[in-house]
Structure formats: C-alpha cells, structure tokens
C-alpha cells in the first residue's frame, strides 16, 4: 500500500506541476459556472432553492464524468506511449499498486475540482435556504460517480495504446453504461433487470441530487469502481500471458 501511495503522490504532483491539470480544472469550473448561471439558476424567478441545488448537481454530474475521462486518459496510456511503462512494471511494485496509485491520484485531483464548485451552492443562501444535508448528499454522489467514471477511465487507459484512444474508449464505455438505462425500457426480463442494475446515471444518481442517500446506490458506485480497477489490473497483468 505504501508503494501505491508513493505512486499516487508522484502522479498528483504531475497534475499540479504541469498545465494539463490546471487546464482541465479551469475548463470544468468554467462549464460548471456557465451551466449554473444559464440553467440551474435560469431566468425562472419562482424556483425553489432545492430545485436550483438539484439542477446544479444534475449538470455537475455530466462535467464530472467528462473531467474523469480527461484526467484518467493519461494514467497508463501515456506511460505506454512514452515507453516508461516497462520501467514501471519492472520496478518492485505490484500491478494492483500501480493501478491503485494512479487511480487515487486522479481521484484526489477530481475531488479538488469538485469541491472547488462549492461556492455555487453557497450562492443560494443569498436569496434562498440551503439544505446542508442535500449539499452533502449531492457532493457524495458526485464523488462516487466521479470515482466510478475514473475507474472506467483507468480501465480504458490500461487497454489503449495512446491517450486519444484511451479517451475514446473510456467515453464509449461511459456512454454505454449511461444509455443502457434506455435499453431497459425496450427489453424483457431478465435482461431489463440487468440493464437497470448496470445503468450508471439514470437509476443511481438522481436520489443524490434530491438529498437522498440509498445504500444500493452507494454500493453500486463502489462496485463499479472495484470491478473497473480489478479489470484494469488484469489488463496490466495480461502482458505475462499474451
């Protein structure tokens, strides 16, 4: 675990020392701000505070997933592209520690970006009433969704040979997991149950928006994170038998 934390610290440093991390953070905060002003606050005067907050989390969930794809695309694909993956895998570090270290670094950076948006819900206090519970639930949902999206991105980065391909692959997997919600409506049992259980956003995120925390939703995001990281480790290990 110490090796994983060492890798995480080094990777987090690379986000903070280079422009890439700041560009992604600035882009996410800019888009979040525009969506907040244009849609969450909107022109509608008689909007409840809870609706504004719910809309904020609705839009932030999209930007969080996109940020997760951009943050994770470089994790392993960049190492492979620059030829440093061999150095990393031949060092006395387990494959799962490499994956965990890289994942934790991007999760920490994503958490920083997500928490940097906290001033937007705080603005509600000027003309409305802020429910701290709903804010906490919404941010918990964003972090869990971001964690799942980052883990999927890490898997995409482990599979791809270049960063662009990693982003495309991760984006495709994320979109697939989101639109599977629509497939549930047109398929029969037991497949529709499987599709419903797999849907990344449609079933599991809206309760967080409304301030409701369900054990099933928390477990779902943790399981997606676990499985994607497990699969990424298996992909990295595959060099031994491929």
């Amino acid at each position, binding site marked *: 675990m110490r090796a994983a934390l060492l890798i995480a610290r080094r990777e987090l440093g690379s986000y903070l020392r280079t422009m890439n991390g700041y560009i992604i953070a600035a882009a996410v905060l800019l888009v979040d701000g525009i969506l907040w002003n244009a849609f969450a606050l909107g022109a509608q005067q008689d909007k409840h505070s809870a609706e504004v907050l719910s809309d904020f989390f609705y839009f932030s969930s999209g930007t969080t997933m996109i940020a997760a794809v951009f943050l994770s695309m470089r994790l392993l694909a960049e190492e492979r592209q620059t030829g440093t993956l061999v150095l990393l895998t031949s060092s006395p570090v387990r494959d799962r520690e490499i994956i965990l270290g890289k994942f934790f670094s991007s999760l920490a950076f994503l958490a920083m970006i997500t928490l940097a948006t906290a001033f937007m819900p705080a603005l509600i206090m000027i003309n409305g009433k802020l429910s701290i519970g709903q804010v906490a639930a919404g941010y918990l949902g964003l972090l869990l969704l971001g964690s799942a999206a980052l883990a999927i991105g890490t898997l995409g980065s482990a599979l791809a040979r270049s960063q662009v391909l990693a982003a495309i692959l991760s984006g495709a997997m994320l979109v697939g997991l989101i639109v599977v919600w629509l497939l549930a409506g047109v398929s029969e049992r037991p497949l529709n149950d499987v599709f419903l259980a797999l849907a990344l956003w449609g079933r599991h995120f809206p309760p967080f928006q409304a301030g409701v925390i369900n054990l*099933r939703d928390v*477990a779902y995001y943790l399981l997606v994170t676990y499985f994607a990281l497990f699969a990424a480790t298996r992909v990295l290990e595959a060099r031994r038998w491929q």
Partner: protein
Amino acid sequence: MAIRPWPSLVYATGLLLIYVGERLLAAGQASAVLTVVGVAAVLGAAAWRGLGARKTSAGVRSTARMLLVLYGLGALALMLHFASSDFGARLFGRPLDLRMPRLAGALAVLWPSLMLAGTLPVLLVELSLAGMAHAPVLDSRRVRAAMLSGLGTALAIVFCFSVAYVTAERNLKVDLAYFRSARAGTATKKLVAALDQPVQVYLFYPPANDVARNWLATSPI
C-alpha cells in the same frame, strides 16, 4: 504446437445459437431447431477438443484438458438452465419454480455464474494461445495465468452482481433534504377515511417557505 481454436469457436457458436433459440425467437420449430443444434455444437466441441488432444505432448494435453473442464462448466450451466426452463417443465411435468421454488431461485443464480466462469476463461485462454501460435513449444504457465485471470474476472462479476442484488433488496435510505412534503402513512389514511366528520387542517409555515409554496402548488384543497 498442435492446439487449434476451432473447437472453441464451435463452442461459442453453439452458445450463441442456444441464446437465439431460447431468448430471441418465440417458442416454435425454429427455436427448437436452433437450441438442439446449439447443444449439439457445444457437445461436439467438447468431444473434438478431447479427441484432438490424445496424441499430443503433455503440455498441449494439459491445456486441452483445462479447456475441456471449462466447456464442461458451460455444459453444466446449460443443463441447469434447461432444468429450470420450459424444457424442464415438460420433462418433469410441472415447472420447477412451482415444485421447488427455492431450488429454482438458486438455479437462476447458479447457471449464469457457471456459464460466465466457463466462458470468460476460454476466451482469455484462446487469446493466450493465439499469442503463442508460432511458438515451437506451448508455455502452459502462460495459458494457466490466462485461465486464472479469466476465472478471477468472472468471479469478480458474480461478486459484484451478488452484492448489488443484496444491497438493492436490503436497501437503507437516508433523506437529508430539508425540503420535503410529508406524506400520510397507510394507518393515518385509514383513520381519516373512517371519520364521519370533516377534518380541518391548520398548517404553520414561516413566510416565503419552500415547503409551504410546494404544498400550496400541489395540494388538491
């Protein structure tokens, strides 16, 4: 190296035919034909793999045996599926979920798990073998690592679905939003319905309250 991917391809085609026959087509002659051909393909693939590895080196034979065991897992999964399907109902007289509902429930979970544990490792073993297509000697440790990787992934999928199912069934809910309109419970509704006098309700809210505005907007009164 004398281990070929064709039996695995026949095995996969057989499973696909069974899926189409059982799930995509309506019950009828076409569905039955596809299912029977699919089962024959699965059994044929196992026989082909077993017979093909008889006069080969020890390494190839152990790999073929490993694949044979995985095909066997798939075939066992199919047997369990058929036992709990319409075919089983025709064979035993009554549907299994009516005769033994707990067993039917267990089989509904067991057969997809076995199918996954029998199919995913085959895919990874074949990928590993494809990587050694031109190697003079088969490295059985690489094949074994691929098989274990596939098996581990299959078990991880089963674990994830199991935990997701249990947490969905035993869900705990915490509502942290202050903004929510309280709803009367069943007992309260029954009590009010049994009253023969009109009920007067007094609600006290501070001015410009979200809950009050929502209540006024949605209340039928």
